[in-house]
């Protein structure tokens, strides 16, 4: 039975989208918008990670590889060939997706923790290679992106708002892709592989192919974030582009929010970034290490007491609030 009226789920989504669109117009401080952009960006990276790490349970700690490849592809195209980052962002995605094939072929031979270690190694190798090849990609010094002022065709804007809306669109794309995959055969295969790879193979799921495909999608999306990030900060070097922190945060926000759920990475990023922003304003200036100390404590707490993530806590609370209301049959079918 299909609902004629928009279901509560879609109303919620519409409200959320409206808030996301209006929110930056209500704040004037560039600092706050900067935090919003970070939240959206890391939600998006988390979503890309979650497709593979959350649904297929392939726990990568090397997504910086694709972040960096995306960033470098678009920057090299821009500076060496004058190609607009709008083309470069897609090219970066394609390069990353292609790179995920050989990397996956190697790493998928390993399971669990050793898969994670192998992915760390691949991201690290890429960083070392980009550090070494000075002629081709500026080596350790990196390079600044030539500032053209307000040049929308070259993905450069005077106002931070523009960047905000770009990354908001990226996030919407990421959520839409996850939503589609979740409800497709691929989604079920992914969950089956994540639950028990051998059992999934036994009932005819081609585990290697499904992992390869989701890795390509995940790499593609992560690379988009890489291009966006260098365009936003106007600078690239191997340590920023292939930063281990990107790999870590991609996994962290998903786990804290709720691994293998549509909204988990978003919830996780909002919680972590909010805690770190509050902490910074409370402590004043930056204390090296405070942010990650808090993140790791939250992560340990989540793992020990709520391994399914904090999104579940929110929905429990929500369920308790609406419990008093009689549940309509239609709503059940929609949900």
């Amino acid at each position: 039975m299909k609902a004629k009226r928009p279901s509560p789920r879609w109303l919620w989504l519409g409200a959320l989208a409206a808030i996301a669109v209006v929110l930056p117009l209500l704040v004037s401080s560039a600092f706050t918008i900067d935090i919003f952009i970070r939240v959206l960006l890391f939600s998006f990276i988390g979503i890309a990670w979650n497709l593979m790490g959350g649904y297929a349970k392939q726990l990568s700690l090397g997504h910086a590889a694709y972040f960096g490849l995306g960033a470098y592809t678009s920057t090299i195209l821009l500076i060496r060939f004058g190609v607009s980052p709008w083309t470069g962002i897609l090219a970066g995605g394609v390069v990353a997706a292609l790179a995920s094939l050989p990397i996956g072929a190697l790493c998928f031979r390993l399971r669990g923790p050793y898969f994670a270690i192998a992915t760390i190694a691949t991201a690290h190798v890429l960083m070392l290679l980009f550090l070494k090849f000075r002629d081709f990609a500026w080596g350790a010094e990196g390079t600044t992106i030539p500032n053209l002022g307000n040049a929308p065709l070259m993905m450069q804007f005077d106002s931070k708002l523009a960047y905000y809306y770009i990354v908001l669109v990226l996030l919407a794309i990421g959520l839409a892709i996850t939503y589609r995959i979740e409800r497709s055969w691929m989604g079920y295969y992914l969950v089956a592989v994540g639950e028990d790879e051998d059992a999934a193979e036994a009932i005819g799921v081609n585990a290697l192919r499904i992992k390869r495909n989701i890795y390509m999608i995940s790499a593609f999306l992560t690379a988009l974030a890489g291009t966006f990030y260098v365009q936003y900060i106007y600078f690239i070097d191997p340590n920023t582009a292939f930063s281990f922190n990107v790999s870590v945060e991609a996994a962290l926000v998903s786990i804290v929010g709720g691994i293998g759920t549509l909204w988990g990475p978003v919830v996780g990023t909002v919680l972590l970034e909010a805690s770190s922003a509050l902490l910074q304003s409370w402590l004043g200036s930056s204390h090296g290490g405070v942010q990650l100390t808090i993140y790791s404590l939250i992560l340990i707490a989540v793992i020990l007491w709520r391994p399914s993530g904090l999104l579940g806590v929110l929905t429990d609370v929500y369920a308790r609030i609406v419990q008093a209301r009689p549940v309509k049959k239609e709503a059940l079918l929609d949900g």
Partner: protein
Amino acid sequence: MIETLAQAVVNGLLIGGIYALVSIGVTLIFGVVKIVNFAQGEFVMIGMYISFFLATYFGIDPLLSLFISMPVLFVVGVLIQHFLIRRVLGLGDMPQIFLTFALSLLLVNVALLLFTANYRTVETSYSETAIHLGAVYVPVAKLIAFVVAMALSGTLWVFLHSTDLGKAMRAAAQNRDVTMLMGINPDRVFAVAVGVALALAGAAGSLLMPFYPAYPMVGQVFVLMAFVAVVLGTLGNVTGALIASLMMGVAESLGIQFVGADSGLIVVFLMLLLTLALRPSGLFGGWTR
């Protein structure tokens, strides 16, 4: 040419001994408890800071502080096994991987808060001395570290093979369920395995201190090496990890000597990726005795 080669091999073997202490710890925990300890490098870091502070404030030689760092880290290991690792055993990959990973993040960043990112060094009377064997130059501090590391590895081997507890640990590594049926208390065996592994990391830290700076991120170098060694040497295989660590020390040193100062790690990672491509089960087959 031959001298350069010999020098590079000696340098590699000497640092490989330290890698061995770290990777034996990783492989021991993996073998017995079936957990990959991402925080192993951070316990090397803690060992280094223990030695640094003992040397700076009490004038205790870093090599003597081995007798403090090892027991301290053994106790830390038992506590971590009891309060943290034990709680995620039998759960999925995610909690098992990310618990120790979070622990690693936590320790690095707490160290950053407490000790800042500054490099700390300890000068000893033997820090600068070296023996000349023909044209080959052997720094005394590294030689001592290597000899002690090998002695500790040998002691562990004897412990695993001739004591009841050691045999219980090997049995638990082979088949946990049957071991429990034989009346062995797994909690105790696991706690000792983690304790011993951390004590080895602490020893590595103290041995490094005379010639290596301590800083919060120092463990990452060693843990990456250890992971590669553990994969090369076949997961859970103590002897394999030892041999692979020495090989990797040499490979890294040859890379630095003949490819470029920044290429040591590339050589090591290429070794890892090649192994994964050609022999994903590692060079040494299953659990050897």
